[in-house]
């Protein structure tokens, strides 16, 4: 369409007369806006403006707002402006738009990065510290609920517990076995490859045995469980919170910690040591297989060497850690789940936070245990 038709300007007796025509609608909005904003420079000495919209044959909110913008710009400069000749059927729309009072977007106050960066760091540190409170809160609530359940075992939700055991324990077995088997194999391969250089191949068995039983087995399994089951706990509880199920439970006199969280946490605490045991065995198996296929060490020698290299202590060091890691994962997952607010975005955010936080805490815990066991000579 010819831009002249959309908006034509001329000066009559010192008045700026604009004649608008054609379709003043969303589709033409870009052209129109250029024309409208181009008016500013024109005829700046004109005392008043009249916008004749007789020729307009299609009109919508965009057109109405642009017409209104001409008028407001003009009036803002202390001059008169009016719209004439608009078809009757469009008038109410124009009136509606005129009633809207849009203040110019105030640009956000410029931040000084010298101030804002330390401020953000400070806020994050404080938030990090505060993050610990809900964790302790949940830990306390779970311990209290566990105590009540011990006194009255009938309170324990058996169905729920079994259901969650099945989900986080039984159904996790194949993937845990597969991953730990591969990790065991990789450790053995790396050990053989590097130890061979100084003829110490045989110590690969010591390395695989001790590493897997003390650290790798439980750590890998805990990290996998945090990613697999921790995230699903957070998402489940979060969506229950969003749909007000948790509130409903509370109003019926049931404690959500007792009904929802305790069975989940117990299931994890029971399942993780079992998975750790299975995972460690799979890793040793993988290591043995690689030692045989890649290192040429027969299974008999591997097993005989393993018997000498490891003791029950190594095994129990790994197993002792498992339930504590499960507790941390469960508590973090559940407390993050209950922190979900109304939106889907918040659910995603808390699920991510839950996984990141529980993996971080699992590793920290592992470090603390390492110091502890070193101190008591285990």
């Amino acid at each position, binding site marked *: 369409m010819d831009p002249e038709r959309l908006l034509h300007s001329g000066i009559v007796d010192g008045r700026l007369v604009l004649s608008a025509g054609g379709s003043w609608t*969303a589709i033409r909005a870009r052209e129109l806006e250029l024309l409208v904003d181009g008016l500013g420079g024109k005829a700046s000495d004109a005392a008043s403006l009249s916008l004749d919209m007789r020729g307009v044959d299609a009109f919508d909110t965009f057109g109405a707002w*642009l017409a209104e913008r001409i008028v407001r710009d003009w009036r803002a400069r202390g001059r008169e402006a009016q719209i004439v000749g608009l078809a009757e059927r469009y008038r109410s*729309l124009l009136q509606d738009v005129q009633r809207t009072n*849009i203040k110019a977007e105030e640009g956000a106050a410029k931040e000084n990065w010298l101030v804002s960066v330390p401020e953000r760091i400070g806020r994050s540190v404080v938030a990090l510290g505060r993050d610990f409170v809900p964790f302790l809160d949940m830990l306390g609530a779970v311990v209290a609920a566990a105590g009540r359940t011990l006194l009255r075992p009938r309170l324990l939700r058996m169905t729920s517990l079994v259901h969650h055991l099945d989900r986080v324990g039984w159904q996790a077995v194949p993937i845990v076995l597969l991953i730990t088997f591969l990790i065991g194999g990789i450790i053995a391969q790396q050990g053989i490859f590097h130890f061979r250089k100084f003829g110490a191949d045989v110590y690969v068995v010591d390395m695989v045995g001790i590493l897997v039983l003390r650290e790798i087995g439980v750590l890998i399994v805990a990290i996998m469980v945090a990613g697999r089951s921790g995230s699903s706990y957070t998402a489940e509880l979060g969506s229950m919170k969003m749909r007000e199920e948790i509130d409903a439970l509370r109003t019926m006199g049931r404690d959500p910690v007792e009904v929802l969280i305790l069975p989940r946490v117990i299931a994890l605490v029971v399942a993780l040591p079992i998975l750790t045991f299975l995972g460690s065995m799979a890793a040793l198996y993988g290591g043995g297989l690689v030692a045989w296929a890649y290192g040429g060490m027969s299974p008999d020698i591997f097993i005989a060497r393993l018997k000498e290299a490891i003791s029950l202590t190594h095994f129990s060091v790994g197993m002792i850690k498992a339930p504590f890691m499960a507790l941390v994962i469960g508590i973090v997952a559940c407390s993050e789940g209950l922190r979900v607010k109304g939106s889907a*975005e918040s659910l995603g955010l808390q699920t991510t936070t839950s996984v990141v936080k529980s993996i971080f805490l699992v590793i920290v815990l592992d470090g603390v245990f390492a110091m502890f066991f070193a101190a008591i000579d285990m």
Partner: protein
Amino acid sequence: MDGVPETIIRVRDLVVGFGGRPVLDGLSLDVRRGEILGLVGGSGSGKSVLLRTVIGLIPKRQGAIEVLGVDPDHAGEEARRAIERRWGILFQHGALFSSLTARENVEFPMREYLDVSDRLRSEVATAKLEMVGLTPADGDKLPSQLSGGMTKRVALARALALDPEIVFLDEPTSGLDPISAGDFDVLIRTLQQTLGLTVFMITHDLDSLHAISNRVAVLAEGKVVAIGPVATMAASEHPWVKTYFRGKRARLREERLAQPVS
């Protein structure tokens, strides 16, 4: 308007079903330009299915649908997009994008379909929000910070973002208190007159049917069993229509209206 009003949505012998028995079975319906058509029917009678089929979210088994003179099934991608640009939909629960603020929600369709400057888009979005009765400050809120009534208003502003010719409203007043629902009815009526909209509205609310609809279509057994101005509905002999428009709740409503204001 010239004598016979133009038909803007034409549905003929529509059959829609999931698995076994069809939900809609040979349904025909015309919506005229510029009217407010209220669609009522029992729960599970297929009101939402009809709406979702017309806007192309559910595939049909048989029949023909024509919106603004185009059959979306047989139109190309371009023509389909052109049609989609000319309608707006208010979903039952608002369906606002939860990661965007109210204003960004209203701007979203503009961003997708129109080539306008950021400034104009934001100004028009704010104008739309004010037209549905919100303040510019509300525009910066996230959907999770809005009340039920405000969510519906923002959703309406988003449905109207592109100045559509047709708006589909899925239970616009459900979940609102009677006063807000009344306000919302008035708002729809005003906007319909100002913007010259055609409104296709699913509702259960007898008050809003009486207050704003030009015609009512009743859906039962997969068909439209009665259609006409709400005043003529009481004359229908169809049992569901009879119960709905002459049932206890309808009578209570009559009595309430008949009572002198004390």
